[in-house]
Structure formats: structure tokens, C-alpha cells
């Protein structure tokens, strides 16, 4: 909770930075503040306090995901520092990002549907604006508009679902709903199930699972690369956390109702996202599809055992977030001002700048799930859980799709090492080189000693 206060406070400080004229210090203040927030998360560990009549509960699950969100945001601020330097409205952008982070924290810690709704909206509205922050670029406009449209469309479904669930159970508190469902099994009105399914659809939009993913590639491609990096890490973590929380607590007892539907969604997500990714010429769009594909693996873990999968999902997301941030960081550097991320742009990157090339290679290998990188352990834990639960056919599907994944990630790697360079050497600031080394070290550490993180939950 204290972390949430700090993040909101930082957002307000950003807003007044323009008036009070301390823009220069703003990023340093934000980074220090986020570090403080992370420290507060650590201090709150193992406390599980409820706030505001149980509307927010900061138990270890929320704290772990909050910590992950804050950690990813810190690294994101480092990767995206040019995003704040390049254009004006620096303070507005940082305020929007901070409020989006606050929304994300709400999405991990809500205990009341109203807080879930508010969290999603705080996060989304900030991002609608950020997605369109390249105002002159039609692609960015289009991304903002599509994101807005699909976001509010999904919110409509989610709200209708919440309303029906409320009508059936008489409460918005998720633990009360869970109890009610447990004690009144068999006498729930049919519209309760309709409500649960509508919420499933609404949240499937938010986590961008196939067939509710079609907005994601467009939005990811059109938005400024830095914002895309934010969406594919922080936003995804928050969305998955809220999805997990709703379905593992509220609707855990009516699992038979949504299980088959989610199973179909999972298989579709794995297959369609990974196959479509093969046909992309833009690396950014390819990463968008791959981030949709990763949701499929997370859903596989969730379906294998929705109660016990939190540790696995948490580790998978952490591994994914680090690798994804590294990949988007490299994308920002390679894309340059015009944000051109076609595969050809990566030709001969190893000759143009070996550090960026090696960093991107390790990130892509981790996303592809090659040991000893953390992506491998994430996939390993998911597969082991699924096999334990007798989901062998689905594991085979997942293994085949991850092989397809290796193919499209290697397309970029091949371009970097085999093709001749198209441009002169790529100059990168020292801060970015340090960042790449830090990200590589974090990736390797997560890969070789994965137990530390998984043990948290």
C-alpha cells in the first residue's frame, strides 16, 4: 500500500514539475522514488494487510507482483530514457506512466471488483494517450484509437460480467463471492455463469489471448517503441495478475464452466500467435505476436493447476519481462528516430554494434526458451506442471509452437550475424551499454538460480 502511495505521489510530483520548474531532476526523483517503493514492498513482505474495508489487500501475491511491476518499470525507465528526452511534454509522459503503474499495482492488489475496474481504467486511459504520443504519425494515431476502442469495448464486457456476478451474489468483494459460490453451489442463477464468461472475455481482451488479441499487434506496432515495451511488460504483468486473481479465487469452484473454453483459448493462442509471428517482417510486430504467444504458455500453467500455478506464472512473467525489456531496449536503439524495425534493419548488427547484438541475442534466446536462460526454466516448469496433470497432448502442442518460436527468433539472430550491414556503426551511449550488461546479468542470474524467485510464492 505504501508503495502505491509513493507511486501516486510521484505522479503528482511529475505533474507539478513543469510549474515548479524542476524538470531536469524529474527522472532522478522518479527513479529514487521507485527504488523507495520497491524497498517498501520488501518491508511489507509477509504482512498481508487489508485497506479501505477490504477493498485492497496487500498479501504476498500482490506484493510479489507489485515488486515485479516496480522492478520492470525501473528497468523500463532506463531503457526508455530517450523517450523522455526526445520530445517535449516530458513531464506529462512521466506522469502518465506513473499513473499507469499505479493502475497496474491496483490490478494486482484489488479485493473488490470496483478496484479492479478502477485499476484497469487508470492503467488503460494513461496508455491510450501514451500510445498516441507521436501525434504527427498516423500509425501512432491509429494505434491509440484502436487501443482506445478495444480497451473500452473490453471494459464493457468486463463490467457487464461484474454486474451479473454482483446480481447473483450481492457483493463486489471477491473473497465473499468465492465463499458465496462455494456455499450456494447448484442454486446459482444461470446469469451468474454468463457473468463469469463475460468477465473471461473482458479479461481475455486485456491479456490479449486469441481470439481477443487482434488489437494487440496493431497497437504494439503503431505505438512508440518505448511505450510498446511498457505495454508488453508492465501492462501484461498487471493483466495476468488480475486474471489469475479473479479466476483462481472467485471462480475457482466453477472451474468446469470455464475450463474447456479457456483450454480452447490457450491452444488457439499458442498456435495462431506463434504461426502468425513467423510471417512478420517487422521485428516489433513479431515481438507483439510472440508476447501474445507467451500468454498461451501462462494459460497452460494456469489450466494445469489454477491454484498452485502462481509461483510458476510469476517466474515465467519475470523471465519474460526481463528478456522483453532487453529486446525492446535494443529495438529502440536500432530503430532510431524513425522507429524503423523491419528485419532488414537488423542486418549486420553484430558488426555495427556487438554489444547491442549480443544483448538482443540473449534476450531472444531467453524468449525462445533456450537453456540456461530463464525462459527455459519458465517453459520447463509450465511443461512439468502440465505433464504432471496429464495434459500431454497440450504439452506437445506447446513444444511444437515453441519450436516455431525458435524459428522466428532466429530469423532476427541470423540477420544480425549473417547479413551485411546496411548502415554505419551504431553509436550507443555508455548508459545504454551498462544497461545491456545489467540486463544480461539479470537474465543469466535468473536462468542459473531460478529457485529464488519461484520460492517467493
Amino acid at each position: 500500500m505504501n508503495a502505491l502511495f509513493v507511486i501516486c505521489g510521484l505522479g503528482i510530483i511529475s505533474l507539478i514539475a513543469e510549474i515548479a520548474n524542476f524538470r531536469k531532476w524529474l527522472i532522478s526523483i522518479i527513479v529514487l522514488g521507485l527504488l523507495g517503493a520497491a524497498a517498501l514492498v520488501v518491508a511489507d513482505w509477509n504482512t498481508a494487510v487489508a485497506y479501505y474495508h477490504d477493498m485492497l489487500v496487500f498479501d504476498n501475491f500482490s506484493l510479489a507482483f507489485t515488486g515485479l511491476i516496480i522492478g520492470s518499470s525501473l528497468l523500463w525507465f532506463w531503457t526508455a530514457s530517450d523517450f523522455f528526452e526526445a520530445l517535449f511534454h516530458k513531464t506529462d509522459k512521466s506522469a502518465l506512466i506513473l499513473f499507469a503503474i499505479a493502475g497496474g499495482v491496483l490490478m494486482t492488489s484489488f479485493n473488490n471488483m470496483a478496484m479492479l475496474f478502477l485499476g484497469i481504467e487508470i492503467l488503460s486511459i494513461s496508455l491510450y494517450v501514451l500510445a498516441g504520443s507521436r501525434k504527427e504519425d498516423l500509425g501512432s494515431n491509429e494505434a491509440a484509437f484502436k487501443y482506445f476502442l478495444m480497451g473500452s469495448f473490453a471494459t464493457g464486457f468486463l463490467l457487464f460480467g461484474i454486474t451479473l456476478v454482483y446480481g447473483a451474489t450481492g457483493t463486489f468483494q471477491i473473497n465473499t463471492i468465492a465463499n458465496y459460490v462455494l456455499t450456494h453451489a447448484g442454486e446459482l442463477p444461470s446469469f451468474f455463469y454468463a457473468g463469469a464468461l463475460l468477465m473471461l472475455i473482458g479479461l481475455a481482451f486485456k491479456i490479449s489471448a486469441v481470439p481477443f488479441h487482434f488489437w494487440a499487434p496493431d497497437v504494439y506496432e503503431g505505438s512508440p517503441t518505448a511505450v510498446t515495451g511498457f505495454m508488453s511488460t508492465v501492462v501484461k504483468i498487471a493483466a495476468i495478475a488480475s486474471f489469475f486473481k479473479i479466476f483462481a479465487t472467485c471462480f475457482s469452484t466453477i472451474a468446469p464452466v470455464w475450463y474447456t473454453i479457456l483450454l480452447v483459448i490457450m491452444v488457439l493462442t499458442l498456435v495462431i500467435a506463434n504461426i502468425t509471428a513467423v510471417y512478420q517482417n517487422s521485428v516489433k510486430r513479431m515481438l507483439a505476436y510472440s508476447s501474445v504467444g507467451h500468454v498461451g504458455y501462462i494459460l497452460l500453467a494456469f489450466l494445469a493447476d489454477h491454484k498452485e500455478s502462481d509461483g510458476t506464472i510469476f517466474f515465467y512473467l519475470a523471465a519474460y519481462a526481463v528478456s522483453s525489456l532487453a529486446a525492446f531496449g535494443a529495438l529502440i536503439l536500432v530503430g532510431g528516430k524513425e522507429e524503423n524495425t523491419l528485419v532488414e534493419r537488423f542486418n549486420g548488427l553484430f558488426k555495427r554494434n556487438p554489444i547491442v547484438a549480443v544483448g538482443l541475442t540473449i534476450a531472444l534466446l531467453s524468449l525462445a526458451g533456450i537453456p540456461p536462460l530463464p525462459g527455459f526454466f519458465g517453459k520447463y516448469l509450465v511443461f512439468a506442471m502440465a505433464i504432471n496433470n496429464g495434459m500431454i497432448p497440450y504439452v506437445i502442442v506447446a513444444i511444437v509452437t515453441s519450436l516455431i518460436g525458435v524459428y522466428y527468433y532466429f530469423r532476427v539472430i541470423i540477420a544480425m550475424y549473417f547479413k551485411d550491414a546496411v548502415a554505419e556503426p551504431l553509436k550507443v551511449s555508455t548508459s545504454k551499454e551498462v544497461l545491456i550488461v545489467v540486463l544480461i546479468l539479470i537474465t543469466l542470474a535468473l536462468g542459473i538460480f531460478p529457485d529464488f524467485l519461484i520460492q517467493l510464492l
Partner: protein
Amino acid sequence: MQHYLISLLIFTPLVAACICLFLPKKFEKAFRAVALIVNVQQILWLLPMLVGFRASGMFQFVERSNWITLNLGSWGVLKAEYLVGVDGMSLPLVALSVFVLLIATISSWSIQKNVKGYFVLLLILNAAVIGSFVALDFLLFYLFFEFMLLPMFFLIAIWGGPRREYASIKFLLYTLLGSILILVVMIGLYTSVSDPVASQGGLLVHSFNLLHMMEPMNFISNTILDPNNPWQIGWFNARYWAFLLLFIGFAIKLPMVPLHTWLPDAHVEAPTPVSVILAAILLKIGGYGLLRIAYPIFPEAAMHFGMFVGIMGVLSIIYGALNAMASKDLKRLIAYSSVSHMGFVLLGAASVTEEGIAGAVYQMVSHGIISAMLFLIAGVLYDRTHDRIIDHYSGLSSKMQNFTALVLVGFFASMGLPGFSGFIAEVMVFLGSFRSNATNGVLHESLAVIATSGLILSAAYYLWTLQRMFFGPFHLKANIESDAIVDLTSREYVMLVPLAIAALCFGIFPQPMLDMIDPFAKYLTALVIDHGKAITLNP
């Protein structure tokens, strides 16, 4: 010190690789020096191991510490250990690796392009190779096994010949497919095996320990790979499938016909030192994995599919030899002869007799030495003329006497002439496969008879090559400078002569190494036959 020798062997190159990363690019000599120092140091650490090794079926120099312990709630505990040790099979292979890596480093002196990157990758590969030979924990083994793939991929991809892109991707796809198959079995074993020591008081500890996996008692009942009640999937039960998946996974690496097609391409495109490592060490991981993992963990499946494995081995021997005979490129010829010789490993393993298994291990070491020498020979020629087509040369012996002498040694050793290491290995494999029918009924005698024709074929293609390239009147194809044809340099002597001596030594005095291997072969044979029978008795 004595207790950490294996860790020192693995981690010295890794530390050296990290140091190299921080050295500026222009210190080209420093990278070479660091790599050489690491290799020499590794030999110094290996010597006490060779001296201190006691011939028995037990693992020695074992190091054990916790690595990953994960409490997954109702899923039990995931436990992976840093567990390394050597026995009569792995120690000769580790020694071979260290020796060949030293020679490969010397051979890498001529690399000019991006020296820093090259030696960093070489050092990482070094660590991964040693690690996979000593790991006794499946997860640790898998990690090292996969970790070999990437340095190798980049070594071929960046420093390779004209078709390097095609060759490296083919290599990557084949080996990745193989490792995915192994991964599937690893997950299955992980869910099925419990640690008998740590699992107490209702706590279920899933172990990756290979030694636990070899004991049928440790399988949890009603799990997918439980020997008492394995699931039926399609034609076979799950354990048979698991064996087949492992077999295919390792056979790709071995490589076995028809999964061998990546090998000639990779060899032709790879630079000489990389070819040497690929042929001499990486192929051995395939045979090692079969004998270390597939056979002892799934003994009844190994017995059941013995004939199939043997036939594939004989097929590799014959098909590889025929292809070698038809090759126009010297390196391609040697690559196919590797396929042929690794077939003996399969045949020896399939026989499940002491002689056969000892012969298979001996063949791995012997082929490691000989193939390293042959690829260096091809490299010597390629360095001078940038041409490896056999028909473009004739009568080289008149210009390169000493080189021709060493080529004779290499070719004769590879043919399996008496007095060379290959002879001992192949004779033992023949004995094993011949005796197999009488002792355990796995293989038919005819297989041994057919396999002997491989010897005749290999004599044919080597002698034919000798006659075409080295004897007769001196003649070169028009566009090759005859001035370039000069005899060996001192660096080349340093590389070739020790290998020739090793091939001779192991041919004339096989006893020391056989003493080392024999307890392992006895142990594995007994284990496979006893457990195989026990498991088939209670279906």
C-alpha cells in the same frame, strides 16, 4: 584441491571467458595466450585425476551441492543438484576432450577474424563439453548439453566457409530437435522419479539425479514412466517411447543414418579447429548420452530395441563408408567416415555385452583422436591451397614427404589396421556383437558379419584416396599455385605428432585404458540385463 578438480576443469574456461570479455579487442595475442593457458592448466588438473582414479564401477571425484530446490506445494519439491563425478566411461572422454581442445586451440592460431569473439566462444564451448561429460544430474547435463549448441552455432556461423549460413542453421535445427526430444523425456522422468533419501515423512522430492533414475524402485507408482505400470501410448508403452525419444535425440548428435545429413555440411563449412572439436568431442556426447542415460534408465526398452539399434549401427557403418567413397571433397570424405565409425559405437552398445560396451567406449576415444588428426590433415591442405577437392591433387608425396607420412598414419589408424587404436575398438565391438546372441540374445550374429564389410570399405576409400592424392606423378589443377605446396610447419607438427603417437599408443598398449573402462562395462552390462529382466517380469 583434490575434491574440486572437476569443478576447476569446468569453471576455469568460464572464468577465462569472462576475463576475455573485458579485455580490449586489439590484444589478439592475449586471447590466444589465455586460451592456451587454460588448456594447459586443465591438463595439469586432469593428471591427478588420471593418477588417482581407481578402476571400479563407482563414480569418483564426486562433488555434490544443492543447486535448485523448489517447493511447489502439492507438486512436491523440485530438486536439482550440482552433482558431478567421473567413472570409467567419462574419465577417458574428459581426458580426450581436454587433449583435443588443447590441439584445437593451437590450431586456432590462424584465425584472424574477430579473435576475441572466437576465443570467448571456444572457452565457453570448452566448459560446456567438460560439463556434459561429468554431470550426473539430468538437468545439469541438459543445461551443458544445450549450452554446447550455441557457441558451436556461432563458431560455424561466423567463422565458417561460404555456405556457413545454411550449414549452421541445419546444424542448429537438427540438434535443437534432438534436445527437445531429450527434454520431453527429462520432464517425464522428473515427474516420475522421487529421491529416496530426501523424500521422507510424506514429502515428495522429485529428483533429477541420474543415479536415482537408474533404480526402478525410485519410480513413483502410477506415474507416466513407472516400470510397474507404464502408460500405453499408441503401439508401445510410455517407457519404450521414452527410450526411443532419447535414442533419436542422441542419435542425431552421434550421428546415425538417416539423421546424419547435418554433419557433412557442418564439417565442410566449419573452420578446421571447429571441425576438430565437432568430430572429436561433440559426436561423442551422443554415444555418451546413450550409455549414460538411455541404456541404464530404460534397460528393458534397450533390450527390446537392441536389434533395431544394432541394425541402425550397421546401416550407419555401411552407408557412411559408401558415401565416403563417393565424396569428392576430402573433408566430406572424413565426415562420412566419422558417420561410419560412430556406427560401431551403436553396434557395440546394442550388443549389451562387456566387450561390446567397452569397445564402444574405446571406439569413442579412438575415433576422437583419429578424426581430430584427419580434420587437421584436411586443414593443412586447405590452409595452403584453399581447395579440398581430391581430384585436384596428385602425387603430393613428392613435395610433402613428412606430411604424407603422417597422413599414412592417420588413414591407417582410421582404417583399423592392427597396431592402431581403431583396431582394438573395432575388434571388441565385433566380438561383442558376435557373442551377443549366445549370451543375451539381443543381436543376431549376421550383424557382426555384415559390419566387417565396413572395414573393407573403409580400407578401400582410404587407399583409393591415398593413391589419387599422394602417389603418382605430381600434378595440381591449373588454378592452384604449386609454390603453395610446402611441407609441415612446426606448429602443424605440434598438432599432428601427438595425435599420431596417441593413436599408436592406444593401439599397442590398450591395457591401461581398458582397465579403466572394463569395470564400467561390467557394471553397465549387469545393470541393463538384470534390471531389464526384472522390469519385463512384472509388466
